[in-house]
């Protein structure tokens, strides 16, 4: 049961365009709507004072504490997942004051006095002196409750996110180091979901400060431990972080080795899966395994949430997808270039596609030269260079289709090749590679196309049908596997049904908000 909600993460989150990594002044109205929607009992129309708003956020955080504690007690990951899902909506509303208040209120003087005092002062220290000063005596007397490490780590995480949004990278890095260490020392299964998040921000801080290569050993170690413990969330996050790390330094060889030595957990969230598929697609594309690359990229594009927040990821994945499609000899659909999210980013790729489609070598070279800088920043330049011979192939195929007999000299002129000899070699190679079906008459210097063969006399149709049938059967099996049934469905009475529906509604909303997680990745 615990995995099902995460599987259906594709829900549209409208009118959010958070920019990655930067703190964004949130429009007051929107903020209030969100808050009101989150705290279910609040009346929607009422205008809230900042103070009340803060109180709401604090209440939300406290509610999450309860969820974490519940999750740790019942060994049910889904409560923790639910709390973490709300982090993205919480993120926009965090202020140093709120954080300081929560921190002060939940660490109480108890058995582990020294540890706790230490943590408080540390966390507060990161928030800056101004926030620390705002903690007045009134908060010191708050409730006493038993502390769990989950809550502790969660607070660390919140402070980390806050620091990231405030662009205080050095501080954040320091804190993330401490948190990662704490998580590793604690070694509790109930922390798994939190740990994944912690590692994510840990790597993010190091990336923003340009020191990614330093954390590779830590990540590798953590990955090994996570694999041994079958901790799917941390494992999938870490694999992606490592891949991103390798890609950052163009170490595709090592990335490939990592992929071949690890198995990506099946239960990973859609967001992680989409990232993984994108990385996989890139590796395969570089290794000339276009069919596999194409499959992975298609999955990446489909699994990624389709909204404005993930525009960056969608653009990157689609760029690569277009190139791979072209390399496979297919022409991407025109409608792809028209999508509002993608249109602007894909213009250079559109022009390349046009050149390849027509088989015009000159136009291809021109476009390549004109957009070289863009392609370089996208790290797609070398892939596009490979397209050159696809352009030629398309050109030859067009010629072969339109002429039953053509002299090599004319082929040479049409394709803008260097010499007739070159044309002869190229045509010969295309014949061997199965691009065209023709023969060359060397003495008279022409190429003769063969009659079209009847495709239905070959095994080709059977092959195509097999692929489709296989896909349908797999789809059926997968959906059977994915079905879940509540335990006592019959005995539920009306009230319970209503309550369950309510819960579901909040869940759906949180899923939509969690989609924003993708936005961290869109500058790749």
């Amino acid at each position: 049961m615990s995995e099902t909600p995460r599987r259906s993460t594709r829900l549209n989150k409208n009118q959010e365009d958070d920019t990655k990594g930067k703190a964004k002044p949130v429009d007051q109205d929107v903020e209030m709507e969100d808050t009101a929607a989150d705290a279910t009992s609040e009346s929607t129309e009422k205008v809230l004072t900042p103070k009340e708003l803060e109180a709401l956020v604090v209440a939300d955080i406290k509610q999450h504490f309860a969820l974490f504690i519940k999750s740790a007690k019942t060994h049910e990951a889904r409560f923790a997942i639910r709390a973490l899902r709300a982090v993205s909506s919480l993120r926009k509303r965090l202020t140093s004051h709120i954080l300081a208040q929560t921190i002060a209120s939940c660490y109480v003087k108890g058995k582990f006095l020294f540890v706790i005092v230490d943590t408080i002062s540390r966390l507060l220290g990161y928030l800056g002196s101004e926030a620390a000063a705002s903690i007045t005596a009134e908060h010191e007397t708050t409730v006493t409750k038993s502390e769990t490490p989950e809550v502790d780590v969660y607070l660390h995480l919140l402070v980390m996110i806050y620091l990231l949004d405030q662009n205080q990278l050095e501080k954040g890095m320091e804190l993330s180091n401490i948190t990662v260490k704490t998580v590793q020392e604690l070694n509790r299964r109930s922390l798994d979901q939190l740990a994944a998040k912690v590692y994510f921000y840990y790597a993010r801080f190091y990336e923003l400060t340009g020191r990614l290569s330093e954390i590779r050993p830590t990540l590798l170690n953590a990955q090994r431990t996570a694999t041994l413990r079958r901790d799917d969330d941390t494992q999938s996050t870490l694999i992606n972080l490592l891949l991103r790390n390798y890609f950052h330094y163009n170490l595709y060889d090592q990335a490939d080795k990592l992929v071949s030595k690890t198995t990506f957990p099946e239960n990973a969230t859609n967001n992680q899966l989409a990232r993984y598929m994108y990385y996989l697609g890139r590796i395969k594309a570089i290794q000339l395994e276009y069919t596999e690359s194409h499959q992975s990229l298609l999955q990446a594009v489909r699994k990624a949430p389709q909204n404005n927040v993930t525009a960056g990821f969608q653009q990157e994945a689609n760029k690569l997808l277009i190139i791979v499609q072209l390399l496979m000899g297919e022409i991407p659909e025109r409608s792809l270039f028209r999508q509002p999210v993608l249109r602007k980013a894909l213009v250079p790729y559109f022009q390349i596609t046009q050149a390849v489609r027509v088989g015009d070598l000159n136009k291809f070279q021109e476009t390549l030269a004109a957009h070289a800088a863009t392609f370089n920043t996208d790290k797609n330049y070398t892939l596009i260079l490979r397209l050159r011979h696809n352009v030629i192939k398309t050109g030859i195929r067009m010629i072969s289709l339109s002429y039953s007999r053509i002299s090599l000299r004319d082929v040479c002129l049409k394709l803008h090749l260097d010499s007739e000899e070159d044309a002869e070699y190229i045509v010969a190679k295309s014949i061997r590679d199965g691009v065209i079906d023709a023969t060359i008459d060397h003495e008279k210097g022409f190429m003769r196309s063969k009659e079209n063969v009847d495709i239905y006399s070959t095994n080709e149709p059977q092959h195509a049908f097999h692929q489709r049938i296989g896909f349908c059967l797999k789809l059926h099996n997968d959906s059977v596997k994915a079905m879940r049934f509540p335990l006592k469905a019959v005995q539920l009475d009306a009230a319970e049904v209503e309550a369950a529906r309510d819960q579901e509604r909040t869940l759906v909303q949180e899923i939509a908000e969690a989609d924003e997680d993708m936005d961290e990745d869109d500058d790749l």
Partner: protein
Amino acid sequence: MAISEVKRLAQALSQEYNSANPDLAKCGHFLSQLKIALIELSYLTHEERPNNIEELTLARDVLEIGAQWSVRTKDIPSFERYMAQLQTYYNDHSALPASPLKYNLIGLNLLCLLSQNRISDFHTALETIDPEQLHNNPAIQHPIKLEQSLMEGSYNRVWSSRSEVPSQEYLFFIDILMDTIRNEIASCSEKAYTSLPLSDAGTLLFFTNMEDILNFAKERNWKVNPVEQKAYFHSDADEKINIPADQIIKQTMFYARDMDRIV
């Protein structure tokens, strides 16, 4: 062995290697001595003494000579070993001063991969190169152009690229590449032509000597008609298409099983 000793050895090696007529056996001797000495310094592992630039530079220079020496002695596995070791020095030690030989050796490595038809490794290696160098460095451009011509089938250009090599070491790999290309052209010709006059086959395959052509034709099992001076190629048009019975049975069983599960 102290570092001064190693330095002296390395100097002797570079002197011998860079002399007009190097004694390759002697260089090999130096190299194996140096490798042992370097292991005692921070040759492969240097976790305890980071940024020991002097030792690292020394090790890198020795390895570079080793790589070039391997090409001269035509020892490809040894060349690959040296290159694999050099990768660390090129990629992971940004503190080291750049080596003038770096791109030359990377270019050689690319060519080496190309000559063994390891295209996917070739492209992976290409990705690690700085884009700036990728476009402008002649040592890198050469293998890239070569690969492009190969992919297109402009074998003429590959042949002529022999005269534009950036350094002497490249020739060794290009010669290997030539053999590969000849076989490529031959296999293309077999598909593209039904018959070919022997003299024309000679020009296509870059042979100047009739005897070479005949030998090559024999190797590839071409039917040569001595009267017409023509080579005939085996045509596969009359080959029978087998029905893949096994496969069809397997697939049908698979469908049956899955259908049974659904209904």
